[in-house]
């Protein structure tokens, strides 16, 4: 009897091993090409999501480039082998990407982690996988020392005592669209009418502009800058650099704060759709979402991660980790944004 039990256990163990081996071969010989930014973003994905896929036999290659560059490569390859299988898409690019029919429909049965997301983040062709929270952040010590009132809206930045001490995103920077869109909304305009926002920017004395987020940290660290408009990830890095910053989600009418959303889509014509969806699903898992948030300063879209993120003091203090509040933040409507017109107006009114 004892022998029989042992045999059964051994057989069961063999069965488990067999099934693990079968599972391990699920993506044998598959190469998945992921279009994403270089630097920290690629490295964080490589350390997390890629590892999970590689465990199942796949190889993950990164096609590094901005979402716009990668989309240009997909368009250039139209009708032929696709140059990547899944890629990062900014919310502002969605009308163009969907209009060109560049993406396959997502099979959410293969992306179970997406069930934790809000319905507007789970779309037919794209799924959100990060957001950034566009904030006003300021040097709390400097404000206290000079008796300045912390800003609540972007219109508060007109305070003449802040002249020459404010930095906002240049239109060509990564935060340019959300920056100008935010100023337009704060000044009574909207995506179709950004002129009030441009006038507001003009009214702020000796404004400085950042092209890359690192400019903000350098400005704060050197003492040249006391207030910046940038996403909360830069506030976190500024705090780590030793500057006592406080973030404020700006007020836009009834809403507080503005988010920029990053999506993933599976490229139409890919031969490895299942692996691409597995990768997307892994990026939405709690562990990977946490890791990506910590490494990149982007905020997770999977709300199950928020309690864990709240255990990191700087992240808790400088970001909004409340699903309802995030849901109530402003999202610019990409269908209403005419970017070339925005840039043209910016060049005429601001760059001159």
């Amino acid at each position, binding site marked *: 009897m004892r022998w029989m039990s042992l045999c059964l256990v051994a057989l069961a163990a063999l069965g488990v091993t067999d099934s693990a081996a079968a599972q391990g071969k699920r993506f044998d010989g598959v190469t998945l090409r992921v279009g994403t930014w270089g630097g920290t973003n690629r490295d964080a994905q490589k350390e997390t999501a890629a590892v999970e896929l590689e465990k199942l036999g796949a190889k993950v290659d*990164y096609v*590094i480039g901005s979402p716009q560059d990668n989309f240009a490569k997909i368009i250039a*390859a139209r009708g*032929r082998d696709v140059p990547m299988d899944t890629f990062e898409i900014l919310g502002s690019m969605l009308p163009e990407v969907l209009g060109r029919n560049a993406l396959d429909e997502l099979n959410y049965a293969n992306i179970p982690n997406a069930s934790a997301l809000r319905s507007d983040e789970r779309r037919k062709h794209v799924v959100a996988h990060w957001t950034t929270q566009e904030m006003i952040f300021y040097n709390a010590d400097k404000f206290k020392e000079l008796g300045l009132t912390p800003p609540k809206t972007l219109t508060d930045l007109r305070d003449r005592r802040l002249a020459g001490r404010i930095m906002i995103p240049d239109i060509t920077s990564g935060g340019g669209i959300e920056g100008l869109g935010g100023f337009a909304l704060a000044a009574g305009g909207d995506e179709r009418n950004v002129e009030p926002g441009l006038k507001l920017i003009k009214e702020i004395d000796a404004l400085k502009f950042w092209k890359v987020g*690192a400019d903000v*940290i*350098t400005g704060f660290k050197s003492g040249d800058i006391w207030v910046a408009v940038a996403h909360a990830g830069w506030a976190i890095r500024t705090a780590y650099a*030793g500057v006592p910053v406080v973030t404020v989600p700006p007020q836009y009418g009834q809403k507080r704060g503005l988010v920029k959303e990053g999506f993933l889509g599976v490229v139409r014509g890919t031969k490895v759709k299942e692996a691409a969806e597995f990768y997307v699903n892994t990026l939405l898992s709690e562990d990977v979402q946490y890791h990506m948030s910590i490494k*990149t300063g982007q905020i997770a879209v999977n709300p199950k991660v928020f309690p864990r993120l709240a255990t990191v003091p700087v992240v808790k203090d400088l970001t909004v980790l409340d699903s309802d509040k995030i849901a109530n933040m402003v999202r610019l409507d990409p269908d209403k944004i005419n970017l070339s017109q925005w840039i043209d107006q910016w060049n005429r009114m601001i760059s001159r």
Partner: protein
Amino acid sequence: MLWFALAYVFLLAPIVVVVGASFSGADTGGVVISYVQFPPQRWTLEWYARIPAVQYEALALSLVLGVAAALAACAIGIPAAFGLVRGGLAGTPLIAALLRAPLQIPTVVIGIAFMQLYYLMADYSRIDLVGSFAGLLIAHIFLVTPFVTGSVSAVLQRFNVRLEEAAVILGASRWRTFCRVTLPLIMPGVYTGALYAFVVSFIDVPVSLFLAAPGSVTYPVELFHSMEHDFNPSALASATLVTAFSLLLLVGAERLIGLNALLRSGAA
């Protein structure tokens, strides 16, 4: 003289900042911070230890690509220069303008145009250069060959043909004359062109951006993307290593080949 010195110091200042900031440490509790701190508060080599392996891989690719592109550009550019200067072809100015054309086309356009060309080739033949090293190399050769053609043409235009005639009169064959007289005298132009070709290939971003294979990018593209989305001082550390390597290479070239002596002989 003082103004020249000051202007030179001003031009070199960014390199000083890059090198200085690469040794700058900050007390951030182990968190990688993303900004340039100059002058350093605390001197450290930690950013050198943190240079990611992918940057070394990208650097190796760029070096191989740059050397291959420069050699190929010499193989194409030197005969082209002879053809332009000595060929007596009808429409030489037009041909010269065509050979210079890659310098006048925005490099982004070159990248996209080659990518489209490779896709077309893949459609109509079995040759698939999309995302291959060969495809990237061909585009770089296109980009850098005008530098070799231009510099060798400039030397050939000043060339004293009587030296070749003297060699022929003394019984040397055309091939021997070319190898023993012509080639040594045009070498300053070849070296200059090859050096430019290597540098232009090594620092190129736009062409490589569109043609590099997934998973393998060139060094400047890797740096460009790491700074575009984030800014890690390890990029400054690797840039400092490349600068130091370039200086060593130039000093070595001067010692071994005697670039200055060659340039003087070319000017004479």
